[in-house]
């Protein structure tokens, strides 16, 4: 416990310094590495990070130049700053210098952009549809037919370019996984295509970047990059219908799920639940998060979400099922959690 009053003056100074160092350290360490342009996990984000540092250092030097020149103009003896008072000074620094640096920068920027936007056939095509306030995910085959439906989580094999087909259902959203690539908007009536890859296995977080209404702040998702073999195994498991529950509580949970009309909005393949308004729940238990990257998936969060989704994420399409009793909630949540 830190009690400022009891600390003597010198020590107080120490505490101050330590706090300052801690703050700076915590800033630099950047606690989150899953969703940061400073922690690239793929070639796309990697190139942009390099470009960023070129810009930061170059910008910093130019800024320093302006500050130093201003200081000279203010403090150096008048006869030694004579060179700054003629037109040539303005023309060299205000026209010639920026024209040269900006042209160089522009050419560099074009080369970076050309490397980022490359033709070639993708290893996998995934259609992502932005909806208020979650992500519908379709894995497509070569003909563009939907092969697998999921939500709020995208699994990809590493080391191969993935093509993302971006669409919007209602308003404009923006698809952004900072550690893998920059963002691209999802616009109703338009289809945008984005191609990038992840270098190594890992979990990356993405978030909607275009303001899309009430719960724009809570519209995130995960990208899980897996070794190609692991990905194949995962994919094979995912195309299977949901497992039939064996335990009494889970069987009861499934019944309650269906009785309470959850199937009107959600699909659980292999059951009568076939609604398409909300996320597909066939393998919801295997996903990292619920409510679009907002809560980790477990029985507790699932039960909480079912009973009070309007409290946790007001305005979303799912009503709160506050009428359910505790054990009913737990049963449904356990059933959903079991859908690996």
């Amino acid at each position, binding site marked *: 416990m830190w009690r400022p009053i009891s600390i003597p003056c010198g020590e107080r100074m120490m505490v101050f310094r330590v706090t300052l160092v801690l703050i700076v350290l915590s800033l630099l360490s950047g606690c989150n590495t899953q969703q940061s342009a400073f922690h690239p996990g793929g070639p796309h984000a990697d190139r942009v990070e390099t470009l960023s540092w070129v810009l930061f250092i170059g910008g910093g030097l130019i800024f320093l130049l302006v500050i130093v020149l201003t200081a000279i103009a203010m403090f150096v003896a008048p006869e030694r700053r004579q060179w700054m*008072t003629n037109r040539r*000074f303005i023309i060299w620094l205000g026209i010639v210098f920026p024209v040269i640096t900006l042209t160089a920068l522009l050419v560099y920027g074009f080369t970076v952009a050309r490397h980022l936007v490359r033709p070639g056939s993708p290893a996998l095509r995934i259609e992502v549809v932005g909806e208020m306030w979650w992500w519908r995910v379709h894995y497509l085959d070569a003909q563009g037919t939907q092969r697998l439906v999921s939500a709020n989580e995208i699994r990809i094999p590493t080391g191969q370019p993935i093509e993302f087909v971006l669409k919007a259902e209602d308003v404009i959203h923006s698809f952004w996984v900072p550690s893998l690539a920059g963002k691209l908007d999802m616009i109703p009536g338009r289809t945008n295509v984005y191609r990038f890859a992840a270098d190594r296995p890992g979990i990356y977080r993405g978030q909607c*970047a275009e303001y899309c209404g009430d719960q724009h702040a809570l519209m995130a998702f995960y990208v899980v990059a897996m070794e190609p073999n692991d990905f194949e195994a995962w994919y094979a498991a995912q195309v299977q219908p949901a497992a039939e529950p064996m335990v009494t509580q889970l069987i009861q949970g499934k019944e309650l799920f269906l009785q309470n009309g959850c199937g009107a909005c959600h699909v659980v393949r292999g059951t009568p639940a076939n609604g398409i308004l909300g996320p597909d729940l066939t393998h919801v238990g295997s996903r990292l998060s619920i409510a679009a990257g907002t809560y980790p998936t477990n029985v507790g969060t699932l039960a909480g979400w079912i009973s009070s989704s309007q409290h946790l994420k007001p305005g979303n399409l799912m009503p709160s099922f506050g009428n359910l009793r505790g054990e009913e909630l737990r049963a449904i949540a356990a059933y959903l959690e079991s859908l690996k």
Partner: protein
Amino acid sequence: MSDTTWEGGMADTREQKEAAPVQFPSPVPRPEDELDELKRIWRAPRGIHILSAVNNTYVGLWYVGAALMFFVLAGILATIMRTQLAQPEMRLVGHELYNQLFTMHGTVMMFLFAVPMVEAFGVFLLPNMQAARDLPFPRLSAYAFWAYFIGGTAFFTSLFFGLAPNGGWFMYPPLTSYQHSPGINADFWLLGIGFIEISAIAGAIEIIVGVLKTRAPGQSLDKLPVYSWAMLIFALMIVFAFPAVILATLLLELERAFHWPFFIAERGGDPLLWQHLFWFFGHPEVYVIFLPAAGMVSMMVPTMAQTPLAGYRLVVLAIIGTGFLSFGLWVHHMFTTGLPQASLGFFSAASMAVAIPSGIQVFAWISTIASGKLQMRTPTYFLLGFLFIFTLGGLTGVMVAMVPFDWQAHDTHFIVAHLHYVLIGGMVFPIFAAFYYWAPTASTRPLSERLGKWSFWFMFIGVNVTFFPLHIVGLMGMPRRNYTYLAEMGWGPINLIATIGAYMIAVGVLIFLIDLAKNFRPFQGDAGNVWNAGTLEWLPSGNYQTRSIPIVTSREPLWDQPNLARDVEAGRYYLPNAPTGGRETIITSPIDARPQYVLQMPGPSWPTVLAAVFTAVFFLGLTVKLYIPAFTCGVLAVVMVIWWMWDSDPGPSSPSVDIGGGLHLPTYVTGPMSHSYWAMIVLELVAGTTFACLLFSYFFLWTVNPEMWPQAGGLPSLGWPAASAALYIVGSAAMFIGGRSLARVPERSAWPMRLLALLAIPVFVGAVTLEIFGQLSTGLRPSESGYGAVVYTISAWQGFFAAVLVIMVLYTIARSLSGRLNGVRRATYDNTQLLWQYATVQGLIGLIVVHAFPRLLG
């Protein structure tokens, strides 16, 4: 123009130093009662009637004060938001309020603070700097101010009822259209802001004509203060940029109210149409805010360094260049919308190019500082703070102009940081420097140096502590416009620092407000030339501005003509009296500022104020769907405008008046020399730009959904547009012949003119109606498709002109009947005819596009 002793040369400033006029135009001593008469004529009304004052010393200051009030209010919203973000998952405000807060913060800062503030300074300063007695349309300034103040205040209060707009300040549909924002929140934005834009345009017309036509004799373009240049370009940019957003708000309101699908993809609209229109306005908007501030800096730096501005011509060229370039980079707000690489490349290059004119200005200021000796007073602190912050903002601007970098930075807190560095650096710091610098021209006491420096340090450190860390947190993945964020994202510490910075800014502003309360004493005189500045606003002045209007022979007349203040005050220069017996100023030629005529100006006016009140209530009524009160007020507003206009166009009070130096000037002119002709031309530029944006919308929707366009068979038969075009031409000819016949009045009766003008009305209305019936005949409906919506909007726009022209023609005829219109006193007819001929051309172009383009496609 008569030959006189007056010499308005174009020679260089420095060489003219010795050639100051030895012969003064007006002999001294002046008659004793002359000054008293000047004071009486320009005296502000007393008591409650002070609100009807129209001259710039009053309206300008009120305007600045109102803009400052909105700055404080929007700043309070910002501190609430920063408090909410200080910690992850804070519960100070919910998403509903937060989303209104950031929308209102952005909107109020941009539309109710930044643009009005720079316009307000223009209204206050320009006549002073150009030694005019007032701007050419004082009542228009008053109207613009009151409409803005009342409309803006009502708009702000929507927040207290939870009705404030919540779609973000750029209001992207479809989020803001009727399906996803059914409440009236969005309507507050569309009608409120649309209306305030109109007030901004009124101010811009005033400023353009003011800079070009009301200058001190001899103040040719090469001796014009940089600030006047900046305001001229600023106002021209408003004229060409604001119509795009006015059209956009109009289209979105039509979509919301009548379901005309301009932005609905499945019915042939496109959400990107909004983004193009909005940013075609929105990017120039940034420079609209920055250029006047840069102009102020170019006035203040020379004074604080006690030396003329280095590179005057380069700086002026840079300002003009910025004006042009800023229209070529709106797409850099749309780098992430999936546009083709080639167009991104073009806009990326243009976005970088605009850094060059800013660079020129920065180094010109540094060069100026090096040439002189910088006085470390409060304005200097804010100027140096400006240089520091704005340079950083400019550099991050170059970064986001790089397309791949922008893909990461766009819509994150990096952009929040960037835009605040640019706008606070580029506009707020210069404005605070300006408060301290120009306060002595408006107040009997200057502001406090001590409080000013405290205020500076809090604001300067606060801005950097708030916004620098936000660059980092943005690239660490934090998007903008999030009412909350999860603890595990690790953005907490940085956000806490930013919030502390925001409170420091608040303290800085508070200190400034205390300083104002303690020391600012307006309307009673001025504190004098406390900085030893060189330009005309530092001449001793009253409500009539300067006692006499000096001849300007250099850019810094007060430095180059040491006795200028004394001679001006003694009445030795032009117009030391009021020869027409009323308010007046000298109208000069736009290039070399030769006196052309004496403009008789209107005085205080209640109808002007009431017209603004009723206009505001009209728009508010529409917003809250109280249609009957709204339309009643709309009619009342028109009545008030007519009442106010009735005294204008006064005709010549005498054939000519002597303004001194043997110069005899007419008191009334019409045609291309007159100020009202110029204003009408500028208004037509506004209308023409709006119409061009509408045609852009037509073609843009075609490129997106060509299959929505009818085959030749689906169009109305050619008879419809042919008949419509014939009517337009007949109406136009009637107005033209009417104008010719007016020239022969009073020898002949005015009836031919009256009858022709009266006949032209149904002809024009008929032309518009025929086009609408033609479209209806094909079964096309506006709510059916983007095509239908845009085609009917072209007609609706023409219908709006029909309504305006009907009022103007009836007004013109009424003036003729009451003997206020004849062959000499004909400005009213000329202006009506100017707008009429414009509307005719616009109608014909509309017909050609709508009927010929689909046929050309085959």
